[in-house]
């Protein structure tokens, strides 16, 4: 699954790496005793979400990527843990100071939105931001496809799952609960546009 571009190196590890990471993080989460209380669903959701992101960051290249680094830093800060990152922050901030003067106003507002989306994007030049975005997209899609899917499979205790991706043709997909909702469920993740992730659990 790893693809490489000549000038840009956006190699992404295999899917299974993501899956493994995610599962490990999930299992770690479950180790926490306060995790399974049903009332704190939101809290749990957030934790799972954070676990997903962090596992993805770790799987995608650890500290080699700016966005993963920023993600890990952010997570570590929240957990009051010290993350040993390489000494590249100074350079990043210097880049930010420099790049503030030479930004194309035309694309700046879009780049700003992208910066808000991609973790750690605030301190990057636009060209670097593009690269990070590409890698981020790759990792996200891979993780969504495989890791979460795997975890779902594990969690739901099903034998086999089918993973579908909506193409451009299908805009919406209706969830049809079957007789046994616990066993047969179809998750449709779609943003109403072209991309969607449909997990049909058999």
């Amino acid at each position, binding site marked *: *699954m790893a693809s490489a*571009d000549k000038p*840009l190196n956006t190699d992404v590890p295999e899917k299974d*790496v993501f*899956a*493994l*990471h995610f*599962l*490990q993080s999930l299992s*770690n989460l*479950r*180790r926490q005793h306060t*995790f399974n209380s049903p009332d704190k*669903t939101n809290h749990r*959701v957030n*934790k*799972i*979400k954070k*676990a*997903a992101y962090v596992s993805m960051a*770790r799987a995608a*290249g*650890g500290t080699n990527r700016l966005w993963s680094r920023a993600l890990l830093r952010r997570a570590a800060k929240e*957990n009051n*843990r010290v*993350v040993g990152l390489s000494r590249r922050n100074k350079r990043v901030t210097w880049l930010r100071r420099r790049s503030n003067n*030479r930004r194309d106003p035309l*694309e700046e507002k*879009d780049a700003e939105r*992208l910066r808000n*989306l991609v973790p750690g994007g605030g301190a990057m*030049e*636009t*060209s670097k931001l*593009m*690269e990070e975005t590409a890698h*981020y*997209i*790759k990792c*996200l*899609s*891979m993780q*969504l496809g*495989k890791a*979460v*899917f795997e975890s779902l*499979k594990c*969690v*739901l205790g099903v034998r086999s799952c089918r*993973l*579908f991706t*909506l*193409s*451009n043709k299908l805009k919406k997909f209706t969830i049809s609960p079957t007789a046994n909702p616990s066993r047969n469920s179809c*998750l449709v993740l779609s*943003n109403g546009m*072209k*991309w969607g*992730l*449909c997990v049909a659990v058999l």
Partner: protein
Amino acid sequence: MDVSEKDELRNGDTTVNYDDSANNQPADWRVSGSNPVSDSYPTENNLISSCSPSQMMDSFGQTLWYDPTNVQAVGGYGGFNGGNNASSSSSSFRGIDRSVEMSWNLPNLLPPKGNGMFLPNAGSFLPPSMAQFPADSGFIERAARFSLFSGGSFSEMMNQQQQPLGNPESIGLFLQGQCPSNEVNVGVAHNDAMKETNVRASEQGNKQNVPGSGNVSEDTQSSGGNGQKGGETSSKGFDSKKRKRNSQNPEADQSHKSQQSEEEADNNGGGGDKKRNDEQSPNSQGNKTNSGKQQQGKQASDPKDGYIHVRARRGQATNSHSLAERVRREKISERMKFLQDLVPGCNKVTGKAVMLDEIINYVQSLQRQVEFLSMKLATVNPQMDFNLEGLLAKDALQLRAGTSSATPFPPSMPMVYPPLPHGFMQQTLSSMGRNISSPLSPPINGGYKRQETNGWEGDLQNVIQINYGAGDVPPDSQAAATEASHPSSNMKVEP
């Protein structure tokens, strides 16, 4: 041959004229013969060869030239125009010199002997009469010589005043028709001769340009070459454009055989470590020394060692800031193209803004999906209690083929989460124990990018190793593969 004939005709006619009415009408250097070329051709030749330069010079009187070429007579006679600067004359002299020297190599219309006779005499002839224009006289002589050889200079000189550039083929017409405005033409004669030499040089250099345009291109090229040298300083003081071009011509004439290489040489001299590219000739074509707005970006933004040298394109500003800006924009557009391949369905979209919007939407949707799935996971979390360990092991089993040994084994998340307790691993191992046929092989160490932090990682590696050893078919990835090959067209496995 026509040209050669005309040249010879000119020579003969002027010679005849000089001999006859040298003192009477020194201005009447024009060919009165007006003749059909064929007539006096042989005779003129004889005359030319027979006449001694000194004799011809004497017949003139003061500054008239013996010459077969009217240019000389004109130039010597009327003196140069007041605007003739010494520098210009000297530079043009140099230019003519070179052109003449080049012309030696050209198929000469006149016998070389005759030329050899003329030149030294011209040199000797010059000092007494043309003290104030020593260089110019010699220059004029050589210009005349060159124009003689080229055959087109006459009309050029004639027509300098009347029209920008004359057709060299119509020399015969102008020969007769020229008014005795020698003085006027004198000043520009050498200029025209210079240009003519350039034209000739360019033409003989196998340029396909029309002489007029060739001259222009020659000039532009020379001016480009000069521009590359930082501007032709001597040209600044000239009133007329012709002078400026003449001054620049010497540089252009240096390698008249190969103008392009000369341009390159100039570029090399001036550019230094600038990158050469295909835009060099268009650069020189469009380069004007006086107008900076059209100047090609000869200098990159201060070439620093180890940096990528960038050359400004034609018609673009050469400011170092703009150059860097352009590089940056190119980088961004290149990455945008790469992103376009990633985001599905963005092939039709063009434009940076729309593409960026698409990318942003895609990233947002991906993040939303993550959130959605995590929510889903959270809701079903309570069921994970007893499933997870077994499933994890099973999943590790299934991961085998997809992950080669080179794949970096994912370490745990020691920094964020509490490490997986050893008990879990032991349980897993025990569960797998019956399936294990081979002893635990050493952990996979290929390509680990991340540091190992906990000891239980080794256990995990062992688990994975077991999975590698066991089984042949990776059910999970194969299931994914089958999904990929599923005939349902609308669906494809998430890559």
